[in-house]
């Protein structure tokens, strides 16, 4: 009866030796490396995070120090007075020259070639406390004499725009990461519970989610943030903004996780776990959570830029961050008058920071989306 036991064993049953036991992370990393947008996004994200963390060191100036208001950006030059190329970059301050305009007899404003300010890396400058603790006065780049150089010009109070933008990334990214962290934890937990247990519980949770999603969000932000007194300390105000953003953001995440969980809860390996007698807790943590995670990670990377955008938008309207804190949105508040934009366009540069951030996280999210399900 076992006639076929004599036949040659089919080669299919040989076990692949070479792929070995690559861990999940190694697989994801290998696939992410193949997508250049994903890697570009990852690089930018890492740079942005480093910039935010070491803002004191990277920013050339103290963001609160004032100088001439609305000073234009100073251009880095590699030429000396006679137009010869020199290796060390320098800036020339604008000054009235001794020449007079032949028509108006006004002194002509031009670069002051006689007093070049040499630029260098790791220069001494404004003193600071890194992370508020470690004292230091070295900056990544700046003028070798320690004086102010405004690569992106100054705002109306004469504060350095570049330094403020670098410091601003700290608050902007902090808000984005905190909000997304809260949204992820709450959204994933609610979504998994709702999708796994189903039935009446699911129905009630989903109705509640719908209520949250149906709120007109913008007026709600404005209303909620105006609830808090103007005199409240800035950190309280910031915390409140984060809570409001999270309260309105978790619903979407929970919807997506619930959908994923619904499909997973009926898959054979979950039934197999029930058949060996696993508890609900074990099934959710061991079987559903790891498989939902890939989706969640992608959603997180795509949710961060949307919070950055929201912050810049609310900040522009003056509802997100209050001075003396610095954020990109708050910096953009200065651009609200036409005459300012027309005359001093450089104060729009925080927009570029927002753009780069949004692009970086989106590119990373897209790369991860392809890489994260290697099976």
């Amino acid at each position, binding site marked *: 009866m076992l*006639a076929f036991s004599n*036949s040659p064993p089919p080669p*299919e049953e040989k*076990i692949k030796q070479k792929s070995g*036991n690559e861990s999940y992370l190694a697989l994801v990393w290998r696939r992410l490396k*193949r997508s250049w947008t994903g890697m570009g996004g990852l690089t930018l994200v890492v740079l942005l995070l480093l910039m935010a963390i070491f803002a004191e060191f990277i920013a050339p100036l103290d963001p609160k120090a004032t100088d001439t208001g609305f000073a234009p950006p100073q251009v880095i030059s590699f030429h000396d007075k006679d137009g010869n190329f020199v290796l060390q970059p320098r800036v020339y301050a604008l000054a009235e020259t001794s020449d007079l305009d032949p028509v108006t007899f006004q002194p002509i404003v031009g670069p002051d070639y006689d007093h070049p300010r040499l630029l260098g890396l790791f220069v001494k400058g404004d003193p600071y406390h890194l992370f508020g603790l470690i004292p230091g006065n070295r900056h990544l780049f700046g003028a070798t004499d320690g004086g102010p150089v405004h690569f992106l010009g100054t705002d109306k109070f004469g504060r350095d725009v570049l330094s403020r933008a670098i410091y601003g990334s700290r608050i902007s990214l902090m808000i984005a990461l905190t909000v997304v962290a809260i949204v992820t934890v709450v959204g994933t937990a609610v979504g998994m519970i709702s999708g796994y247990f189903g039935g009446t519980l699911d129905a009630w949770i989903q109705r509640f989610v719908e209520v949250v999603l149906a709120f007109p969000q913008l007026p709600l932000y404005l209303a909620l943030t105006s609830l808090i007194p103007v005199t409240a300390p800035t950190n309280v105000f910031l915390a409140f903004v984060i809570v409001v953003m999270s309260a309105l953001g978790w619903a979407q995440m929970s919807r997506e996780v619930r959908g994923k969980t619904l499909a997973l809860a009926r898959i*054979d390996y979950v039934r197999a776990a029930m058949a060996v007698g*696993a508890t609900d807790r074990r099934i959710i943590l061991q*079987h559903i959570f790891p498989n939902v995670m890939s989706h969640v990670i992608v959603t997180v990377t795509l949710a961060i830029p949307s919070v950055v955008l929201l912050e810049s938008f609310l900040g522009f309207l003056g509802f997100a961050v209050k001075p003396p804190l610095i954020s990109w949105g708050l910096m953009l508040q200065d651009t609200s008058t036409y005459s300012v934009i027309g005359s001093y366009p450089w104060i729009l540069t925080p927009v570029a920071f927002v753009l780069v951030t949004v692009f970086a996280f989106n590119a990373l999210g897209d790369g991860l989306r392809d890489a994260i399900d290697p099976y």
Partner: protein
Amino acid sequence: MALALVNSFAPDRRLDAANKTAAPVIDARNIAVKFKVEDGMVDAVKDITFQLYRGETIAIVGESGSGKSVTARTVMGLLTKRAVVSNRSAVHYDGKNVLKFSERARRQLRGDRISMIFQEPMSSLNPIYTIGSQIVEAIRVHRKVSRRDAEKRALDLLKQVQIPDPEARLKQYPHQLSGGQRQRVMIAMALANDPDVLIADEPTTALDVTVQAQILNLIRNLQKQLGMAVILITHDLTVVRQFSDYVYVMQHGEMREHNTTEALFANPQHPYTQHLLTSEPRGQAKPLPPNCDTILEGKSVKVAFMLRHGSFFKPDMRELVAVDSLNIELRRHETLGLVGESGSGKTTFGQALLRLMDTDGGEIFFDGQPIHGRSRAEMRPLRSRMQIVFQDPFSSLNPRMTIGQIICEGLIVNNLGSNKAERLERVKEALVSAGMPSNILSRFPHEFSGGQRQRIAIARAIALEPEFILLDEPTSALDLSVQAQIIDLLRKLQDEKGLSYLFISHDLKVVRALCHRVIVMQHGKIMEQGPVEEVLSHPKTAYTERLVRAAFEVAS
């Protein structure tokens, strides 16, 4: 001498036998296809040569991964972008090499002179267009005819493929048709422009056994009427035997053997073909030891689902009875088959007996203890004694867990084994019993083939040392030769460990090889039951007879 036949084409003998005109419709030479993968190139098809003559059916047989579908898709020009066709390859249709055609010229050929039908009729039709408009589109892409003429032609085609009530079907959407009817629509679309060649890629694999015979007969009749040549791609040797004139056997992208169907089945030359032919499930269950006590008993078990019809505001709740008051009794050491077409309620019944699904009535006893109405927590002490193996080994293993974690889970949950080392020992033991090496504990499921995964799933079940295992179509997702190995394994485990099986299947061949008794189900009711030989050789109901005929003869 025997191997000299392999790869040497014998046109004379074949032409004499079939009495064909000399030129083949399709003359494929040295087809070689590689796929770009992460680390280099993988050979999918290496040097395949075949000929197809007018009015003939050739079968390309092979197990999954043998490259048979890739070969067909090369002929159609439907390969993915990652595929690289070798320069030496040539597919001559009508004397011209179509592989050298532009994409535009190939598109004109495709669906016009050469048509293809696919395995999955559920996904090959666009759900948002009516049947009629999809057939009309297939006609009007290639022919300049008015919409009305095309519609008339569509109706003729539907009549030709023998769909009941063809006028009404034209206006219907794919979801309103059954799987068999959809496959008929696919055939109608493929025939829309009177093709010379029809390529059928596993046309019946997704269909019920009884429908399978009808579809294959339809293809054969149409072939005779229209004088087409047919390439039948399949893994099912019964189908090959009944429906093809000439057979090509493929393995690992290479041609192992080809011959006329009769000669190949009578006298297989290549060891792989011999192996395939002997892989058909055979043998039968060992007789039961006397006086076995009952391990599982169900008394008038009922499972019903509430279906919602009508509008949102005026819901019309209807009850669908999936399992209608069934009685079942399974003894120790016994294998009981549960057969029926899809939708007959056999899986629901099986899971209800294990209390993986709630019942709406009836009593279930496991080893004398009542288990109906027990909650999941109350069931837990019994869980290690009853286990389940699922049909699809790809969805039954968690992709994020290692093999060790997967098998060990049941031991941890049930507090079996006093410490980690002891559990590990049991996991290894289970793997070895299931015919797998014990050094794969830190691997992930995706590194294994379907058959290996099914062994791992079996290892998970037997690691708990159960007394009873529910086998829910454990072999139907597997290749024939792997299927034979799994059946062997199940037999061996039953012998060694005295297991009882409830074996759910639609494949009566496997049931005959493995089961002592069989229950035939239809629409949630038991049609017939008894010792397996008796039921299969003397079916009492027409339904059982149809199932038996479909399994052992295909042609009805």
